[in-house]
């Protein structure tokens, strides 16, 4: 078995830094007992001894940035909550995880739900909130089960409810299951959905920090953002800043998927590269090479094998013309037809478009029509410019960022693979064999073994 030379230079122990995932391999990793054994709820003890504003300052100084896609500084978001306004404040955790390719929050909640719960209590103490919600996408019942269990354990142990740990601080936490709609991951659509309405985005301003849930000051944060807070409390901001870069400090979960030898979760500092991750994890599947990948879900522009050394942090991926997004590293090898991939994502956006604004509702529909034709060999050469033109009318002109996301795969794939689109048109069909891309393409005996 050959091992790439770079493995000798960069050992997995050095590239990776499990924090949230550090004990996922324990038999009962999701229980309060296990969590406590690994220092769980120590961060909360420290936070409760601090003034709320000092907790906000600490999180701000740590440099933690939102892990839900946009990378907004978490401490700053908390600071925006007006104080002494006499209104209730709310924390809403965004556990809607539906961006194609994104698969970090769900395993995190399955294996270690208490890290989120501890983060929630700390965050609510900081922003003076007595009611928090976890908005979990509905299609993940195993995770719902573990959340129900963890929340019950936390109430029982006095981490939730009246007078948390004797501090005089009260906190109620409600787990809310969604009902299937990608757009509900967008924070204002999520709030409408949580208010019992169709999940359609709201006009901003006012931002949720001023008028969010029930028109009250509300923080919406991603699961991983909030779950990262307890470790900052226990180990300090300097420890957190010892990882990553000045502007993108800390650790994060990278999700490798697709035609790689070992898909899965890899937790490490921000700023490592896809090449490093592939080197330590066994690379692409044997005999194949990387063709294109997403750095952070399907809404982040595609990158190619030219970009293997791009530092996976907010600035690095931005400079390469894409976005770090959710760090969903979907890797496709040379057997994959980029037109098929983009057509399928575009069908997804068309299906999930909430219909509120015209550019996205109509644009995604027409982009699907054009892409289906091109994929089926019925496209015309002028279709490519028409596709770009429509994408241009969706991008930046839609009501919310779903529209921008829908345009991303189209712009970026045409930038790097225009010639492949043209081959579909001139050759009147797709030159790829989908059977070669399947997980079982190299295992004729798989069915016997399985």
């Amino acid at each position, binding site marked *: 078995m050959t091992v790439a030379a770079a493995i000798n230079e960069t050992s997995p*122990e050095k590239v990776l830094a499990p924090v949230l995932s550090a004990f996922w391999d324990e038999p*009962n990793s999701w229980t309060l007992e296990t969590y406590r054994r690994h220092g769980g709820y120590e961060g909360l003890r420290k936070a409760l001894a601090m003034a709320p504003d000092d907790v906000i300052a600490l999180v701000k100084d740590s440099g933690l940035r939102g892990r839900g896609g946009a990378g907004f500084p978490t401490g700053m978001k908390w600071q925006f909550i007006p104080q002494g306004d006499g209104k209730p404040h709310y924390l809403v955790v965004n556990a809607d995880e539906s961006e194609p390719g994104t698969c970090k929050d769900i395993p995190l909640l399955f294996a270690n739900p208490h890290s989120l719960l501890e983060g929630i209590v700390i965050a609510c103490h900081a922003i003076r909130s007595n009611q928090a919600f976890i908005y979990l996408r509905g299609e993940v019942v195993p995770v719902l*089960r573990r959340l*129900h269990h963890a929340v019950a354990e936390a109430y029982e142990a006095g981490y939730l409810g009246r007078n948390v740990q004797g501090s005089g601080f009260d906190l109620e936490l409600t787990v809310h299951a969604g009902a*299937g709609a990608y757009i509900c991951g967008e924070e204002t659509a999520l709030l409408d959905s949580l208010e019992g309405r169709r999940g359609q985005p709201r006009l901003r301003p006012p931002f949720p920090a001023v008028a969010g849930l029930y028109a009250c000051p509300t923080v919406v944060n991603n699961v991983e953002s909030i779950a990262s807070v307890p470790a900052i409390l226990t180990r300090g901001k300097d420890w957190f800043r010892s990882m990553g870069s000045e502007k993108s400090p800390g650790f994060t979960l990278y999700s490798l998927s697709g035609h790689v030898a070992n898909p899965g979760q890899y937790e*490490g500092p921000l700023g490592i590269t896809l090449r490093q991750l592939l080197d330590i994890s066994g690379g692409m599947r044997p005999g194949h090479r990387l063709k294109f990948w997403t750095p952070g879900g399907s809404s982040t522009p595609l990158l190619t094998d030219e970009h293997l050394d791009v530092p996976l942090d907010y600035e690095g991926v931005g400079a390469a013309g894409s976005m770090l997004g959710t760090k969903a590293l979907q890797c496709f090898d040379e057997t994959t037809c980029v037109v098929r991939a983009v057509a399928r994502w575009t069908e*997804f956006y068309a*299906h999930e478009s909430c219909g509120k604004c015209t550019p996205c509702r109509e644009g995604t529909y027409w982009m699907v029509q054009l892409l289906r034709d091109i994929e089926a060999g019925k496209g015309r050469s002028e279709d490519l410019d028409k596709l770009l033109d429509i994408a241009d009318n969706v991008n930046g002109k839609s009501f919310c960022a779903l529209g921008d996301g829908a345009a991303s795969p189209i712009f970026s794939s045409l930038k790097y693979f225009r010639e492949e689109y043209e081959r579909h048109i001139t050759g009147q069909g797709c030159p790829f064999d989908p059977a070669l891309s399947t997980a079982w393409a190299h295992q004729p005996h798989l069915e016997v073994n399985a």
Partner: protein
Amino acid sequence: MTTEPPVSLGIPEMPPPDYPAEVRARLEADAREVIARYPDSRSALLPLLHLVQAEEGYVSRTGIRFCAQLLELTTAEVTAVSTFYTMYRRKPSGEYQVGVCTNTLCAVMGGDAIFEALQEHLGIGNDETTEDGRVTLQHIECNAACDYAPVVMVNWEFFDNQTPESAKRLVDDLRAGRAAQPTRGAPLCTYQETARMLAGFPDTRTGAVEATGGAGHASLVGLRLAKGETAPGRIVSPREGGIAPGAGGEGEE
């Protein structure tokens, strides 16, 4: 199956029948419990729609009227919400909902082939139900399990790393009433029981929470590497001669 009324021209539909009294009493007690979890009662609408789905297996007009009455909304308001979300079924469907992920990554890794194989094997199309009422087939969007592609969900429990053969065996088992064990999740219950959990009522079956262990194999690959438990050499090309990605395989926990 539904008996849809014939198209009527201008004559309003009669109100749907109410639930039988004892059903209504039981549902109302549940609904009050759900409503109490929220500062504003309307927030309980999504869970209540899950609750009425737990009663009948789909969101019927009776269920819509029930939600409207409890939350003091119009049936039009409730219908507008229930039709926005894909998890609410609009017609009676199977006991097991089999969803094949056909978003790009799973599709490319074999989800398309699995979906085709199942359509052919079951003789039904998307969103259709087998005659025995056991299986409703659906293609679904990315279910946040791409590192286990291709993924099949049954009643929203994970069946990871599927093949056309394994998926066919799975639906055969479901139809024959044989137990099917998810890769991640608890032993299957019916669609209606699942809907009740979604309404916010915890699974009370013994062993359900702990079933299938802490984390799935793909969730652990990075951790095992970082701990030096998997030698880099061993993990190269694990797909040759074995199905479990990662050195250990599933049986380790």
